[in-house]
């Protein structure tokens, strides 16, 4: 009897262990005395973009050649589940040693002591942060501490369909364009009978109204991250740029764009122009229709010539057992050598200044240089400690304004008021 019970207990234990083990199974390997020389160390590295996986694997291999005692185990989680998984891992104290982070999450993770501050290491190894765009370094600085080494960045450009421009005998957009010119041409290119629109105006932030808010002199969140800029007349002007395009029928309606995404319409020749990010370059290059029919240029100017920039960083978990090895790897990922590997793959613009030329050459079809030029004038992606809370409200209220269920002023002012409440509680 006793034997049976102990077998049953053992079986149960195995079952429980099997449930919680998951992707972490290799972490405990060689945990004793992390810095002991020659000891095998395995680091886990979490990321979400399948397109960048080959480049990341190559980097891990290169790093391993130089540091034979450190193995890198890459964990790929699709973007949609990535933050849910990280949130659970952080709560349970099982974050991967190194992982990708983005702007909206950085303060939350840094302020809750989930990340290893890197300023001391950066100073000790005399890493020059001027090698990266300033907006990105600032994005990952919290309380005067650096928490990430920038990995890549993305800016926004005006993608356009050359064929539709040629058919209508309209010259292509260029750096001389401003808002009025864009509106004028968008109307000119719209042909309701053919179901073709001059531009797509979906209620998107980063690849939409964030850019025009900055261009009209408004802002989304104040520099001290304490107040919302949504009640400023300049901000409202930046939003109206888009709703005007819909009201003047130069763009499909918000309802139409929610059923068929702007990118899909663009890829099937129904849309002549759209704001979209550098991250679309490799997808457009692989698409049979867009690969030789579209190109990209600078965003048309508003009052100011600026746009929004965002980028990813590599961070180290605060409770990693191998902080020294993890830092060595992050340093390699952020180095010129690492950036070159990413650049060659074409999947993202590497953050290390000077390696971007390699990225440009990876897709010669498009005028990709504009993305790098725009980075120098760009303003950082707006964030606060709990970005997700007000970002959800932003989507809700802007959707109402776009759909005409609310006036732009009312939606924007309501957002400002509620956002201020949320920010005061952070």
């Amino acid at each position: 009897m006793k034997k049976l019970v102990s077998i049953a207990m053992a079986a149960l234990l195995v079952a429980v262990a099997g449930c919680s083990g998951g992707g972490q199974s290799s972490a405990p390997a060689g945990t004793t005395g992390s810095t002991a020389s020659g000891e095998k160390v395995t680091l886990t590295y979490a990321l979400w973009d399948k397109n960048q996986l080959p480049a990341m694997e190559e980097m891990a291999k290169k790093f391993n050649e130089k540091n034979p005692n450190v193995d890198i185990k890459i964990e790929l989680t699709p973007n949609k589940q990535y933050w849910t998984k990280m949130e659970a891992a952080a709560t349970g104290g099982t974050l991967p040693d190194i992982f990708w982070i983005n702007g909206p999450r950085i303060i939350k993770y840094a302020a809750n002591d989930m990340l290893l501050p890197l300023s001391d290491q950066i100073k000790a190894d005399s890493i020059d942060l001027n090698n990266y765009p300033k907006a990105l370094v600032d994005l990952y600085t919290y309380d005067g501490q650096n928490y990430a080494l920038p990995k890549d960045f993305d800016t926004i450009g005006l993608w356009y369909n050359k064929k539709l421009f040629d058919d209508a005998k309209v010259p292509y957009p260029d750096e001389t364009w401003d808002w009025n010119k864009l509106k004028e041409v968008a109307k000119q290119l719209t042909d309701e009978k053919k179901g073709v629109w001059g531009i797509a105006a979906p209620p998107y932030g980063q690849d939409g109204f964030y850019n025009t808010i900055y261009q009209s002199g408004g802002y989304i969140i104040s520099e001290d991250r304490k107040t919302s800029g949504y009640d400023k007349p300049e901000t409202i002007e930046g939003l109206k740029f888009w709703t005007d395009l819909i009201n003047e029928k130069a763009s499909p309606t918000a309802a139409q764009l929610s059923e068929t995404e702007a990118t899909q319409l663009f890829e099937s020749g129904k849309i002549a122009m759209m704001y979209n990010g550098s991250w679309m370059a490799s997808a457009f290059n692989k698409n049979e229709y867009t690969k030789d029919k579209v190109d990209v240029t600078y965003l048309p100017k508003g009052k100011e010539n600026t746009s929004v920039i965002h980028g990813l960083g590599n961070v180290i978990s605060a409770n990693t057992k191998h902080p020294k090895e993890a830092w060595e790897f992050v340093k390699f990922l952020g180095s010129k050598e690492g950036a070159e590997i990413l650049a060659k793959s074409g999947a993202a613009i590497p953050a290390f200044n000077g390696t971007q030329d390699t990225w440009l050459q990876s897709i010669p079809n498009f005028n990709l240089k504009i993305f790098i030029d725009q980075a120098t004038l760009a303003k950082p992606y707006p964030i606060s400690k709990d970005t997700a809370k007000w970002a959800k409200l932003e989507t809700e209220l802007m959707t109402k304004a776009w759909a005409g269920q609310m006036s732009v002023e009312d939606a924007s002012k309501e957002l400002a008021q509620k956002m201020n409440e949320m920010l005061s509680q952070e």
Partner: protein
Amino acid sequence: MNAMSSQLQPEMHAAVQPKTKKSLNRMKRSDWFWAYLMIAPTLIGLSVFYLWPIVQTIYLSFTKWGGFGKYKWAGLHNYELLLKDPYLWIALKNTLIYTVIAVPVGIAISIFIAVLLNQKIKGITIYRTLYFLPVVTMAAAVAMVWRWLYNADYGLINYLLGLIGIEGPRWISDPAIALYAVIIVAVWSSIGYNMVIFLAGLQGIPRSYYEAAEIDGAGPVRMFFKITLPLLTPSIFFVSITSLIGAFQVFDLIYLMLGSKMGNPATEQTQTMAYLFFTNGFESGNGGYAAAVAVVLLVMILIVTAIQMKLQKKWVHYD
């Protein structure tokens, strides 16, 4: 457990006859031990994965959620916020509309099809398979396909309506229609599962009842209402309880068809309780508040199920 012990005991009695009452107790105790050991895996699973989370959810609904599992006691704060939340009333209304339409309509159609598929016709297995197919298809795939069918500008449904001169509505982006568009898909995808249960119920009705009714001169409609329907009530009861609970928790179809981050003008007016729970808990990281929503939903389901259990004595016939 009962069946097992009553089967085993006579033999054991025979084997240990001279023993006293005390040892009999020991026997019984050993039976109990084995019985509990056998159901232990399920019991442990239930407590770890169902009961404990329920207790935790109720506890968390009284807390204010910080980052990464840090929370502090907040008393009734979340429930106060919930009562003031305009979305709660939208979600409650939509959940009720959804349930009140989807459940009866789904059951009626399933019974109708089950009766049809209970006949001797050619290719019956093919029909049965066809009706059952949506059940084995993932909700995500179902939602994506229907999203395309419903597309107002390029979708098949509006194209077909256009052929007969009707301008189709904006199925999934018009706030007045979107919920009903989802209900249609929900009913469509629930038919197969319900139908199989009804088919089993129908097969259990003895042929002799129908033969007797035929001799008495009853037509097929009368036979359906006087024989089939009353004898099918246990199946109807089972299906109505499971589909009610499912309807109260509807989430996947709405989330996948109406999208949350796409800027769909219909999403806000079409959210349900489970949707409210998801957006608060997983999108804006408001764990305590989401737990309160879940508790309200739990209470609703408990009440409705209790009412159904009470009412069943009136209309369910077990023989």
